[in-house]
């Protein structure tokens, strides 16, 4: 067997290591005096850009959901996380979701639901803190999903700009 030749042979100083170790320690020392960028989560929170995809939420406009229960989000969802049951309403839009549930254990935060929605009724929020202790808690109903439109302004602007 031929002896493998190294691509680059170490020179004498490299081989005694001491110089290299000192170099490494210098770097560490330099960083000690540089400004820190560690975030003190959870005391200090991250403020996401509008492009961030947190948990999907339903847009609440004038105290009601915009959603017309068309079921497109439910159909497109690759993880089958969304269940929608439509019912009739006296409102002009005729149809509303009697039941709207997202199983947050299934959701993969892909944002397809937001993309397909014809009513801009479901958008990706900035909420990423999802902790549950029971399976049932992971299924978010309308109570947890509805978010006033004012809080979702920047995301709505973002999706309009990038349509």
């Amino acid at each position, binding site marked *: 067997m031929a002896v493998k030749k190294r691509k680059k042979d170490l020179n004498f100083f490299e081989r005694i290591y001491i110089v290299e170790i000192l170099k490494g320690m210098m770097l560490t020392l330099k960083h000690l005096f540089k400004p820190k960028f560690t975030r003190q989560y959870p005391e200090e929170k991250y403020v996401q850009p509008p492009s961030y995809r947190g948990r999907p939420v339903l847009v609440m406009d004038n105290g009601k959901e915009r959603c*017309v*229960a*068309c*079921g*497109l989000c*439910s*159909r497109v969802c690759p993880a*089958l996380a969304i*269940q929608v049951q*439509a*019912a*009739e309403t006296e409102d002009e*839009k*005729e*149809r509303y979701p009697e039941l709207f*549930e997202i*199983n947050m254990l299934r959701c993969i935060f892909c944002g397809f639901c937001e993309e397909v929605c*014809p*009513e801009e009724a479901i958008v990706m929020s900035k909420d990423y803190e999802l902790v549950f202790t029971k*399976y049932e808690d992971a*299924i978010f109903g309308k109570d947890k999903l509805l978010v006033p439109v004012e809080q979702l302004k920047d995301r709505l602007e973002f999706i309009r700009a990038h349509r």
Partner: protein
Amino acid sequence: MPKVTIDGIQYEFNPGETIIEVASRNGVEIPHYCWHPRLSVSGNCRMCLVEVEKMPKLVIACATQAMDGMVVHTKSEKAVKGREHVMEFLLINHPLDCPICDEAGECALQDYAYRYGTGYSRFIEEKNHKPKRVKLGPYVMFDAERCISCSRCIRFSKEIAKADQLTFVQRGDRVTIETFPGKEFDNPYSLNVVDICPVGALTNIDFRFKARVWEMSATKSICPGCARGCNIDIWVRNNEILRLTPRFNEKVNDYWMCDHGRINCFKFVNADDRIDGPFVKKESQLVLVNWDEAVSRAVSELKRFKGNEFAVIASPFATLEDNYALLKFSKQILKTNNIFFIPHIKPGDQDDILIREDKTPNSTGLRLLGIDVSKNDLSLETLDEKINSKSIKCLIVVEDDPIAVKPELKNAIQNLDLLIVFATNKNKTTQYADILFPAATYAEKNGVFVNFQGFVQRIRPAVATIDVDRSLDGLAQSRWDKFGTEFDKWARGRKVNARSDWKIISQIANALGGKFDYDTSEDVFIEITQNVKELANLDYETIGELGYQIKSSKLIEEKILV
């Protein structure tokens, strides 16, 4: 025979046929809205424009008769452009309602806009506004904005349902559909307009907003509402039937079904009063027990009686297989000929379209097996006397409700020593049962019904019972069924603990020393074909999707067939 060339291929035709008829008979698609094979030609939607050589302008295929040597192009540039323009006009005033419209997913306007439209709109003006949510009749809701004025609904009412109840009013872009003043759209076939309306202008109030069409699975079956046995599709989501729609069968129901069938013939399957699991009477209370206990109780109780102390009521609502097993059970195990069925005739409720007086799907099948409405002067009329005089001590009722038909029977039934009932839902008779077996409904089992014309037709399970698995047992599956797990609410629909009658009967019979060696309902059917001459050599595959017609002059003479 004269020949016409469509898109380069020659087709023979019968003189008088239109281009669209020749094309559709040969599987060439010419898009159309107003044309329907069973309705008169109206020619108003203009969607079926085709180019015919030597004709100066595009012609509509639905109103142009084919002529010998005619050369038709459906895909030429001129034809394609023509269709695009028609599509554009149709969409000008069509609202962007798809997200709330029940038709979405099975809408011809959606499909054709996708396939034959340009994909964008040049119309930026305000769309036309018309009334939405107009209740035309008890079952049909009308949305005037969505209507493309094809007039199919008007022609259907006049020509097929023979109830001239709809008409156009106004003209131009204000045209809309109305019933005559003070009248409702309420004929017995009204809901068929929902199927033939190419858009979502007419919707079924009973099904409105219940589900999107792509969420359901469809199973080919037969309506149990009357002796016609209309071919239907059963639409199921999460193990619950949400609607029935007619399935084309030229010789039985054509494209149609009646409103009674569509509205009333599935709700009992989902109902809360289903018998869920076997019950036996303990201290005058019906108590839920397991199958083994119920069967062994039936076995030991049945041994107390013999021969003509039994009476058996067969069921024209149950399949041929169920009734055959019951007949064999009576003859071989109980050793009695006391088996009859209760007729359910509603005199006068019959027409020349579909509806039959006989409100059961399988009485012809029962007669074919040799079961009739009376036997040895035993029938529903004489049953109470015979019970009261103690000549009949044990009664077995399968899928029927004798007390509902004849209320006076109530006292006699309580004089019985043993009453065994097989029922799908609670009824007036079930409460008196000593042993109550839960029967699967027509939507939960395999089997055949024989209609009044002698069509042997298959029913197939659309809803899973407790011991059925949608995928392992080959039931139709929607996307939700395929991917749902036990943790998903939308895949946890109720499953009733019920079985086909033939299965329960076989289990009892085998415990009493019989040889009822069946694994599937087809095994029972094959045995029937060996015993019933008219059905010889049939099997489920030969019956197929459109049924097999028994032709027998003897049966017509005996008034079993018409």
